């Protein structure tokens, strides 16, 4: 397979040596662990769905699909949405990362916090807020500018999805830009390169894995997202919502499986091309050798760039602000008087136990998902040659299929105890009488859905690390696991932080997979939100979202406390210099 280490003979010939012949026991254990969890979490359920998608009764559906203009339109819609969100989201992430690491401007800390907010995007809340603010009768679009703007459709979806997904790109890119060796930038500038030239010929190529990783993740997440196309899609139908509605509206599980299988193809295609393209270049910049200082941009150029970032930040604040204000308002836009009733219902009613249950389950899933993502990334980038692509892909599967489909897969695969002959091999995981009242499978689903984020940021961070650093440790006699713990981990700490935070946020806000897995013993807060939203009780839904956001932010704080902050990899030049011309 296309392994970065393997394919890097041009610059570091020594690194081209294949990894140690004899795999250490720790690597082997890690591998088995990853394979089993990924196997149980995504491969088995997806195979169960595919078995349905490829059953004889389903086969004529493919002919129908590829001859129907309607269905082909849905496929095109899906790809267009994915590409736009991937590109725009990554661009916004890059902009924010650039402002954060290279511009000499005030309030960077505040901007960072604002960029983090969308990681918590409770289902439906942001989409609804977008309709309330920027829709046909939007408070801003109609109220201020008098425009009846029809936000439903592609434009609204791209706006909301880009804004809610870009933080992953941003966090990954900030970490990478901080890790970029400033010596090269310094050298380029000393030789008279302009800032733009440095950006174009040095920073961007070095960041490429960091750009392609988020792009891929955003693409896949955008095409698999369900809540937003349902709320904001209007007549713009995508495969994920089509598959969901085949189950919900037509009771057609086979149809849903067919749509889901087709949905896997764009994700798969992009994935393969990314590996092919990235696999051939060297990107290592964290070498452990002494380096120069970062020179912050202090010319006038910073102001227009900063202004764009501020504008985007203002839109984010307006959307999330609406959710919070909505939680304390009778009916936003209709009766704007202040009330605590919605919040009281959440905190004192049946909502509280749902919030606590969800937080506990997500809290269990988060460290597992974070560790698993990093472990797979480490195995894929450092230790595996053959099959690394497959492991990487299997790890990404959890997010590539729509949640509903994964949920159906879990139901198909894990309902009832499994026996081999007379020996029980696996207790039933789903439904009444299942292991831990069905909580185990919820945790498994959370883990499966959140591993990809940690995996992608981890892979990006690791492919920037020079393998020499780890080789040095290994040569001194450290085991691979110890090397990982003491050398690699501290250097990719911010990627781990991103992975963990994202896992927690994702688990807390996951809807579609979980809906099919809830039992009387496990109440999940997102299904309460949907229930409230479906009956038009927006105030309560907003209140749930606000409480959810507070819980997630508290979780972030805790994770940060436990993982620690990143090690500064370089210093910033004391007096920012102008580029020398």
């Amino acid at each position: 397979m296309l392994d970065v280490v393997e394919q890097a003979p041009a610059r570091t010939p020594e690194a081209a040596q294949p990894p140690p012949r004899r795999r250490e026991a720790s690597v082997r254990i890690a591998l088995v662990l990853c394979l089993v969890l990924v196997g149980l979490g995504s491969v088995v359920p997806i195979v169960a769905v595919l078995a349905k998608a490829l059953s004889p009764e389903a086969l004529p559906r493919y002919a129908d699909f590829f001859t129907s203009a309607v269905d082909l339109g849905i496929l095109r819609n899906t790809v267009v949405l994915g590409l736009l969100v991937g590109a725009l989201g990554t661009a916004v992430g890059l902009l924010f990362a650039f402002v954060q690491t290279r511009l000499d401007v005030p309030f960077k800390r505040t901007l960072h916090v604002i960029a983090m907010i969308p990681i918590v995007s409770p289902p439906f809340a942001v989409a609804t807020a977008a309709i309330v603010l920027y829709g046909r009768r939007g408070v801003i679009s109609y109220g201020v500018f008098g425009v009846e703007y029809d936000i439903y459709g592609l434009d609204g979806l791209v706006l909301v999805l880009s804004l809610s997904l870009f933080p992953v790109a941003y966090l990954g890119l900030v970490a990478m830009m901080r890790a970029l060796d400033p010596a090269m930038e310094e050298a380029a500038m000393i030789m008279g390169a302009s800032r733009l030239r440095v950006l174009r010929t040095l920073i961007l190529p070095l960041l490429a894995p960091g750009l392609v990783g988020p792009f891929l993740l955003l693409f896949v997440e955008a095409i698999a997202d369900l809540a937003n196309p349902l709320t904001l899609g209007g007549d713009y139908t995508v495969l994920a919502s089509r598959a969901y509605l085949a189950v919900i509206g037509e009771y057609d599980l086979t149809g849903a499986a067919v749509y889901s299988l087709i949905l896997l193809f764009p994700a798969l295609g992009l994935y393969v091309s990314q590996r092919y393209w990235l696999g051939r270049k060297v990107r290592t910049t964290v070498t452990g050798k002494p380096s120069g200082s970062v020179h912050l941009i202090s010319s006038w150029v910073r102001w227009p760039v900063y202004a764009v970032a501020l504008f985007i930040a203002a839109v984010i604040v307006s959307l999330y602000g609406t959710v919070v204000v909505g939680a304390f308002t009778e009916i936003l836009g209709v009766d704007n008087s202040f009330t605590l009733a919605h919040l009281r219902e959440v905190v004192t009613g049946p909502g509280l136990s749902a919030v606590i249950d969800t937080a506990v389950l997500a809290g269990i899933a988060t460290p597992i998902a974070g560790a698993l993502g990093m472990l797979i990334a480490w195995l894929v980038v450092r230790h595996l040659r053959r099959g690394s692509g497959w492991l990487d892909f299997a790890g990404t599967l959890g997010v590539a299929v729509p949640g509903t489909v994964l949920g159906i897969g879990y139901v198909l695969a894990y309902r009832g105890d499994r026996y081999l002959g007379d020996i029980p091999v696996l207790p039933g995981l789903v439904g009444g009488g299942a292991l831990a009242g069905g909580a185990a499978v919820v945790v498994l689903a959370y883990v499966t859905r959140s591993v990809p984020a940690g995996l992608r940021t981890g892979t990006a961070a690791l492919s920037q690390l020079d393998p020499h650093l780890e080789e040095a440790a290994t040569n001194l006699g450290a085991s691979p696991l110890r090397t990982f713990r003491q050398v690699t981990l501290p250097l990719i700490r911010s990627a781990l932080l991103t992975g963990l935070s994202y896992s927690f946020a994702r688990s807390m806000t996951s809807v579609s997979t979980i809906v099919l897995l809830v039992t009387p013993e496990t109440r999940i807060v997102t299904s309460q939100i949907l229930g409230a939203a479906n009956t038009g009780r927006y105030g309560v839904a907003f209140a749930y979202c606000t409480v959810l956001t507070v819980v997630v932010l508290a979780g972030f704080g805790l994770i940060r406390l436990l993982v620690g902050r990143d090690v500064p990899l370089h210093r910033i030049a004391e007096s920012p210099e102008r580029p020398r011309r």
Partner: protein
Amino acid sequence: MVQRIHRRVPPLLAAALVAVVAAGCTRAASSADPADDTGKVTVACGATEEWCAAMTAGFTRSTGLKADFVRLSSGEALARLEAGKDDPEFDVWHGGPADGYVAASSRGLLEPYVSPNAATIPAAYKDVAGAWTGVYAGALGFCSNTRILAEKGVAAPKSWRDLLAPALRRNVAMAHPSTSGTAYAALWTQVQLDGGADPAFDYLAQLHSNILQYTKSGAAPGQMVARGEIAVGVVFSHDCVALQQEGIKDLTVTFPSEGTGYEVGGVALIKGAGNPVTAARYVDWALTPESQQIGPTVQAFQRPTNPAAAVSPYAFDDRAVKLIEYDVAAAGAQKSVLTKRFDQQIAQAPKS
């Protein structure tokens, strides 16, 4: 050679483990024996969260038997029932439109049961063979925003023809019939009223210019009306009433004079349920006036099917509203043909 095999051990081991788990068979439960009944019933509940909670609590209050529920929409419930049919986790399915129950029954997921209490339920609201029995009915109506109507200078629609008014251009919404039972009921209503699919599609083609969008969920048009994004939504009247009760004052409900379609919410026993005795008692109870009067206390304003139950003033009045003959089975049989035709002929057409 040995070494190569050696290196492949971990993946093989893991694959084998996963394969064993996947290949292991599930066992059909030996339950469905009345003697094993635990006196506790687990309900797959298709109504709102609050309504489900109030129902199960009411059952416990009046019978002393325990009840748990999981809220699932019809499609979710069906998917879960089908996947677990060898060892059902639910005993009863309660709430949600009858077409879901018809589909479940045709897949052999329901246990026919004619409750002694079903005798009082009108024939239009139950299955002859007892596969399911109706617990509530909801009628299709027009949910309008009076403020927007005044802006456009039109009165609240009183007939299906009124929806074609040029002043309502891009100011009407209904759900997409292939994704929403509500919208399919509206489509089937046209087929019944116009006496065939062709005239029904002529009407829908004319209506198309006035439609802003075909929403995904059946209740969404009501919410768009509530926010003032559009003037009129085609929804079940109780969804609109629930929004009014939430405090949105500008809403008004009207019904088409030609006649309108309706849904029936069902209750049914699950085949092979672990607690068949308690489950039957739950079904009996769900048909009582006491149970059917719970809805309005939790903002569910459907009409009870038991004639003895007190009717909320907010439920539709079955004497004032003209209902069409609605044959759930016939409507279900033509669904895929009609929705496909809708998709190709109507939804894609440019709006004039």
